[in-house]
């Protein structure tokens, strides 16, 4: 299982990477962590004429806290984000999700941006981006543009990134409400595998315990990760009783379109969606109460 031959450049800067993308078009692929790309190349399912290695571009590897968001460079390693306690305090869902992502070796090389650009519908980080409404900055030799997560994920393994664009950074919104709690949960065959179904939730309470903000979503039950802003809005103003959370979770399960495969039937995924969404909301609620 040796890769087919390709030309290789180690890009020294984002500008150089974009210039190469512009020149080679869809004959080129960006090489970041390689944890998804290289297996496909080993199996010769992908055979790009050019690989543009962006691993050595320091400007793509950073974690920068701002007032309402944390900006993370696209090539920041998943392990670096996982270890960053300041980041975990401000965007707790990231560390919670990363506990389910692959294994130590894959997190040491795999990047935040790579997982988002790969856009596997059952992947954990795209779900967090969708639920939190992350913003993704794309750069090309023509300029840059920002997409919100909902516009970024267009289908299974497919995003709005154009052939001459490089994902540069991701802006993760920070909730300033003091009583915020979040949770990520999933069912997988073995720990580290892609999710059979995954759920993420984040809620904020006022001093009386009333919900003032909520967001939740599901992965592996549609072509993209799914967020449910309308159902979440329906929880605002309530005390997040078990009945209300279950109802919102079940409505979400009814609204999704899971597929069936070797690991789970569509019906089982739909059932899991309701169970896991409720569990994520419940755990997020508990954390918010304790905050």
């Amino acid at each position, binding site marked *: *299982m*040796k*890769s*087919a*031959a390709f030309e290789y450049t180690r890009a020294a800067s984002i500008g150089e990477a974009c210039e190469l993308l512009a020149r080679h078009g869809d004959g080129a692929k960006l090489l970041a962590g390689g944890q998804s790309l290289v297996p496909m190349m080993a*199996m*010769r*399912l992908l055979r790009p004429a050019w690989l543009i290695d962006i691993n050595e571009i320091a400007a793509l590897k950073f974690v920068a806290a701002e007032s309402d968001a944390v900006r993370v460079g696209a090539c920041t390693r998943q392990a670096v984000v996982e270890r960053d306690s300041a980041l975990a305090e401000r965007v707790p869902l990231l560390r919670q999700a990363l506990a389910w992502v692959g294994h130590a070796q894959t997190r040491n090389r795999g990047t935040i941006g790579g997982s988002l650009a790969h856009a596997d519908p059952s992947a954990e980080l795209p779900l967090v981006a969708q639920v939190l409404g992350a913003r993704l900055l794309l750069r090309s030799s023509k300029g840059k543009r920002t997409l919100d997560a909902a516009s970024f994920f267009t289908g299974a393994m497919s995003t709005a990134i154009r052939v001459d664009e490089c994902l540069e950074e991701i802006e993760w919104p920070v909730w300033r409400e003091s009583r915020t709690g979040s949770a990520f949960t999933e069912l997988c065959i073995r720990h580290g595998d892609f999710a059979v179904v995954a759920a993420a939730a984040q809620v904020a309470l006022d001093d009386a315990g009333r919900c003032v903000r909520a967001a939740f979503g599901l992965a592996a039950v549609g072509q993209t990760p799914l967020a449910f802003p309308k159902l979440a809005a329906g929880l605002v103003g309530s005390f997040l009783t078990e009945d209300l959370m279950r109802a919102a979770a079940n409505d979400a399960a009814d609204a999704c379109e899971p597929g069936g495969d070797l690991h789970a039937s569509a019906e089982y995924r739909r059932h899991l969606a309701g169970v896991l969404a409720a569990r994520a909301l419940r755990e997020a609620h508990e954390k918010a109460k304790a905050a």
Partner: protein
Amino acid sequence: MSAYRYIGKGRRAKEHPRFVTGRGRYVADISLLGMKHIALVASPHASARIAAIRVDAALAAPGVHHVLTGEEFCAHTDSLQIGVDAPKVTRWALARGVVRYAGEWVAAVVADSRALAEDAAELVEVDYQPLPQVVDPEEALEGRILVHPEHGSNILYRRKFVWGPVEEAFAGADHRLSFRASWGRSATVPIETFGVVASWDAGTQILDIWASIQMPKYPDQTARALRLPGNAVRVHYDVDVGGSYGVKRGIKHTVLAAYLARRLGAPMRLIEDRLENMRGGDMQGRTACSTCRRPSTATERFAACAFAPSTTSGPTPVARRCSSASRSAPSAALTASPRSSTSRSR
């Protein structure tokens, strides 16, 4: 406290120090001067006629020394042993004329590196005419589609074992119980795939083999297929094996690599990659359907049992044991049916 010197004492294994310091010697660690590398072209079809194979483009690819097909290989080597009395059933590492399972090898490419051999393997063109296929053992028993037409049926081996008065027990029974169990193919998936390095010395006329092997009659079967005297095959048993758990048969890989070593006058390396290991249709545990019928009376619950396992050992069997417990009248039938695995997406 143990009274013995070795039994019951915590002792370390002799081989562990070399494994934990990275000094094991597995077959892929062996590098001989002038060694060439083999990659395979495999059939995506479970059952098909091979209408044509064109190798010109592959032969012209960088670093390629030879492309071998069944036409030459099957003429110059003997069939691998089947293990049961079925003289019309034959098996070679390379298909000739027809393919009988998805994953069956159709051509072997020899090149200066595995990567170059894989590049060239993609350039081999094979024209297949798909034929009807049967993969289910019970359907195979019906014999409407024959895997080895010369054999006349899909039953390779039938044997009946009778212990005790089974018919009488059934005749005198108040009740009968019957259940059917079936299970699919299995693979042991050792972390190390099978591999072989073969080197032919034209001077001494001796074939040296290093392989990740753990089965009996290996040099014997290799010699026989290559039409060599038994003492011309020298297997180096000091090669470390990275697990097998029954699946590393390796005869077909070995005969192929050895033939090419002799033919081209250079040592040959054939290491299965993981896709080849998972798709090697004739290197897996068999499908089985078993029907067990049991009569019982009010007083004697388990008087007898008739157990009829029917297993597919794939397109060609390697002799399988038919075991059944209990005093019973099991009859065992080994049937041949093509193995189907997911078709290659290369």
